[in-house]
């Protein structure tokens, strides 16, 4: 019974399993070895130094994919480097991390704001400081909006990525729904008049609720929660940016109390971590929501709605006339240490993220805002929204993902879940702020 018959010969089951286990161990060791076969800073040789070929990768929706293909082809034509773009479909972070671990990652690739710290810690990204300080760099770092760079740095201050563009939080509003609600002066006009403050927002939300529509949705993410704090003059971070202090800042606590009052009154809807297809944008596009606090990424879908009148304003502020710093979503381009031609990959990065590179991608109906100075007009193309210049002003002043979140994979991964759990538990604003700050400062 304990033997297997193979072609008439007895092989003991124990022997067979032992052989298989040994082979398994050997293959496990081999696979483990695969994860560390690329020494940092030493890429395999390929092509003439500085001439590529270069592979780069990013996520992309269909519109972005067309733009990236064109940018890639144009780059090859202009600089003579063969460049290949890989579209990563599905779970971007998992796939890139796996490719990096296996030594098969593209030379340059996009890194999301919650993914930068683990990638820096992996030792697989190239520090960019020397290259960007050199004469060969197509990008001058001083051109990049300063608030958008910190998350791309390691704890010792080295830079590992540069934002490819940005998406600052602005206050989109549906003109028709506001008119129906009796809001006679819209947020853009109120900002121009210097009256776009918390009281004006309260009035707007109360009037919209009376119509049966939703006035505003706040989701369980730092982009929404902390923008409200800073736009009303509160502080989220300590002066060195390494800890959150909103739980001890009076203005921040006042804002959280104001927000929780609105949740209780139903004038602001808590969106939780909304599932795909039930996002806030779907409500806004479906005219079920009067305002939405998003970036420029929603514009391509809004353009398709011929009957909807919309515009943007900055987020409201204490004095009603100042554009305060609020959150900006960013993704960065980085170069891996095992790039086949590091010089060519770095030059590609510089040309991709400099003003010319961003202009090439964002022209003709782009869905983002430049992260560099000098190409402000790009967001004014097509005249939509009417007040589009606000995008640039907010991006210039804005801040990207807070460092205590960016530098802890556990916090960035679980921020939404923890926040959602706290809010749904029914705790008050003070306890919420205290618990959330403790969660972030403890690194999860």
């Amino acid at each position: 019974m304990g033997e297997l018959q193979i072609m008439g010969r007895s092989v003991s089951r124990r022997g067979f399993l032992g052989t298989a286990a040994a082979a398994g161990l050997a293959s496990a060791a081999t696979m483990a070895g695969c994860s560390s076969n690329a020494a940092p800073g030493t890429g395999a040789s390929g092509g003439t130094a500085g001439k590529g070929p270069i592979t780069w990768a990013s996520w992309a929706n269909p519109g972005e994919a067309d733009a990236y293909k064109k940018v890639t082809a144009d780059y090859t034509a202009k600089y003579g480097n063969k460049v290949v773009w890989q579209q990563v479909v599905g779970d971007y972070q998992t796939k890139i991390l796996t490719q990096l671990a296996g030594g098969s990652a593209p030379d340059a690739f996009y890194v999301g704001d919650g993914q930068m710290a683990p990638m820096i810690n992996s030792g697989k990204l190239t520090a960019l400081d020397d290259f960007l300080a050199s004469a060969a760099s197509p990008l001058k770092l001083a051109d990049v909006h300063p608030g958008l760079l910190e998350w791309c740095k390691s704890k010792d201050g080295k830079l590992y990525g540069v934002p490819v563009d940005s998406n600052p939080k602005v206050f989109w509003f549906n003109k028709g729904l506001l008119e129906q609600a009796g809001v006679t002066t819209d947020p853009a006009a109120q900002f121009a008049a210097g009256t776009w403050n918390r009281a004006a927002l309260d009035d707007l939300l109360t009037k919209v609720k009376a119509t049966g529509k939703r006035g505003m949705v706040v989701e369980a993410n730092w982009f929404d929660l902390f923008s409200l704090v800073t736009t009303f003059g509160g502080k989220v971070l300590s002066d060195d940016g390494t800890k959150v202090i909103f739980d001890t800042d009076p203005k921040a606590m006042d804002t959280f109390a104001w927000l929780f009052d609105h949740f209780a009154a139903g004038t602001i809807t808590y969106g939780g971590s909304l599932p795909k297809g039930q996002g806030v944008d779907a409500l806004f596009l479906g005219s079920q929501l009067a305002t939405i606090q998003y970036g420029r990424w929603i514009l391509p879908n809004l353009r398709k709605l011929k009957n909807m009148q919309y515009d943007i304003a900055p987020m409201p502020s204490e004095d009603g006339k100042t554009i305060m710093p609020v959150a900006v979503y960013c993704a960065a381009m980085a170069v891996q240490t095992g790039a086949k031609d590091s010089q060519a990959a770095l030059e590609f990065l510089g040309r991709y993220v400099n003003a010319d590179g961003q202009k090439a991608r964002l022209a003709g109906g782009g869905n983002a805002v430049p992260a560099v100075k000098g190409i402000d007009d790009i967001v004014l193309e097509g005249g939509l929204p009417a007040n589009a210049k606000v995008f640039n002003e907010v991006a210039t002043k804005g801040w990207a993902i807070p460092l205590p979140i960016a530098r802890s994979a556990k916090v960035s991964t679980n921020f939404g879940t923890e926040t959602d759990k706290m809010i749904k538990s029914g705790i008050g604003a003070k306890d919420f702020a205290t618990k959330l700050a403790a969660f972030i400062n403890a690194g999860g």
Partner: protein
Amino acid sequence: MAVATKEGARASAPPQTKSRTAKQKDLAFAYGFLSPQLFGMVVFLLGPLIFAFALAFLNWDGFGTRSFAGLDNFAWVFSDPQMLTSMGNTLWFTVLQVPGLLVSGFMAALLLQVTKKARNIYRVFYFAPVITSSVAVSAIWLWLLNPELSPLNPVFRAVGITPPDWLQNPTTVIPVMAVVSVWQGLGYQMVMFMAGLENVPSSLMEAADIDGANEVQKLFRITIPLLSPTILFLSITSIIGSFQVFDYIYFFFDTTAPANARTIVYEIVQIAFREGNFGRSSALALVLFLILLAVTGLQMVAQKRWVHYTE
């Protein structure tokens, strides 16, 4: 039958007179033919299995050096509040989904058994969701469950009910996912039960009729006992499948599932690839493996009491 099998095996055995060289040659051929499959099994199954087992006792972020963690990863699995919540969610999903699948599959099979002409048409309709990808199924249900845009909302409003926010409500999110899962898996269960029902001897039914048994008595005294091997098989595979639920949650919520919607496999993926903690993730995977091993073992032991084989 047993004798015939032994005789057959004896007849196919190599002649005793075969030389040692010929035997070795045969063995080499055997291993040669087996090697592609063995290679795949070792590289893609056994190797990763052993590697994951080892990782459960290590600290590793996927890139740097590994350090020995002892049983810390397991201690974390059983002490982290979210892990306990996710295990509870998984168990709750299993409790709802497995009986739901078995009962609905059995009922559908019974109904189709008495349907004569249109049986194959119904079978196709019931089976269609099984061969539809979970992503497509999730997309359809995401629309149906949307509190603002669902076509079911007018029905709710017509009877005076505010359309629930199924996926955001901590109480409804797991039951809703169980419903979606039962809807998709019903066809497979039904086909398996239909095959089982075909094998219930008509002579037993006729004997029961002669004895004056009614339909309910025949169902509980003959049909269900004779279907017990099918029920055992389906319950084992359903439990294993339900403990591994991931696709619906991932499609519905992406990487930001609320606490009450997260399951064990969802956590395994999040902890490994989002948090970069392969040690804890592997420990959780190993715990899941042991849970499934124990549950399946218990079922195999318990089947001696309630599973009836006709031969």
